[in-house]
């Protein structure tokens, strides 16, 4: 789960690189960012449950 979260962040990092310097995203990139952020939220939620139970 830790790796999954870090890998979602990595994909977001690459998206930032591809859109530098303005970070304006087209519709496809915006959709990808949304998907990655939702994954990340789920992964962090699972980590909270697992590590703090």
């Amino acid at each position: 789960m830790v790796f999954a979260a870090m890998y979602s962040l990595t994909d977001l990092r690459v998206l930032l690189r591809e859109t530098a310097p303005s970070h304006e995203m087209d519709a496809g990139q915006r959709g990808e960012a949304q998907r990655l952020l939702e994954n990340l939220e789920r992964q962090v939620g699972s980590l909270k449950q697992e590590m703090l139970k």
Partner: protein
Amino acid sequence: MRCGSGIEARQVDELFINIDPIQAGGRLTADAMKAVIAYGDGYSVCDNCRKPNRLDYIAKPPIAEFHKDLATWLNMDSARVVPGARRGFQAVAHTCVKKGDPVLLTSLSHYTEFLAVEEAGGVACEIPANDGHIVTADAAAATIENAKRRYGRAPVLAFIDHVDYQYGNVHDVQGIAKVAHQYDIPVLCNGAYTVGIMPVDGKDLSADFVVGSGHKSMAAPAPSGVLATTAEREKEVFRTTTISGDLTGRKFGIKEPELMGCTLMGVTLMGMMASFLHVKERVKHFENELANNRIVTESLLSIHGTKVLSEYPRKHPLTRVDTTGSFDTVAQTHKKRGFFFSGSLVENGVHGIIPGATRIWKFNTYGMTTVQAHHLAKVFVTIAEENGLKIS
């Protein structure tokens, strides 16, 4: 944001379009970044190292398979990973060159090729580039004849850059190799700027050795690289150890002395491997890179007084320009002198030009998106207009 005492997190490529000529091809892919996260510990690839205990025999992760794939991809017979192209030069020079031997280099060769020759005791014989900064087969033939007259024998090795670091020009490796082979001179093709950037076929180039750089052109962490060779030459450069301890009688299996045994035992190799599929794919789309370079180069040429010093039209995205007649005229009276240019670039989201440079400088458009190429093109013209330069 710090990642350790005194170490700022590096965000150059997240915040800017990075046109640093040596950094463009080494930017990691997402998969390489993920491999770096998972394999950052020291000897991380050695979990499943079994006899005969050599890096290129490890099956899990699939390092053995990667070595075979590397050789196949370069159309050579055998390949090893090395800690940077320079270590490939060193291994080959140490194998082929004895004290006092003449060695062919070129007037555009990288300094590490010279150092490899120096360390092996060789003597440099540079093939001169022509007025267009291209190294030709005819010039190679003349240099070999000169060396024969001067040293009484032909050079024992030729280092030929596929694309040189100064102009990003493509040189006639195939033609030069044809000439060199007539004198039984083995040819090392320095692909530091081509392997992983554009298609490279070692057999087609008639190269005896192909050297590539992981961190310069294969989207891998530094130091990493590849040394590939033919079935004939692998017996020499990849020979195995024969030494034994006089006290203990110890021997060292099939370790290869020129490589000092295993080479990339962790994050460098895993980064290189993780990027490999992407790298194999991206070289097939090299035309797109040239198209992006054209967008930027044409915008620079629209600024009066600007010259492209590299061969033109461009065949590689590393490009050398002369802006003595444009941006440097501004620098003469600007309160920031030459720093106005690099400063303006940074303000507009562009990084990688040597601060203060306004005369002769290099940039590399490799890996940028077309949107970024248009942004960069617009930035150059905007800076020129803001400083009163004429645009056509």
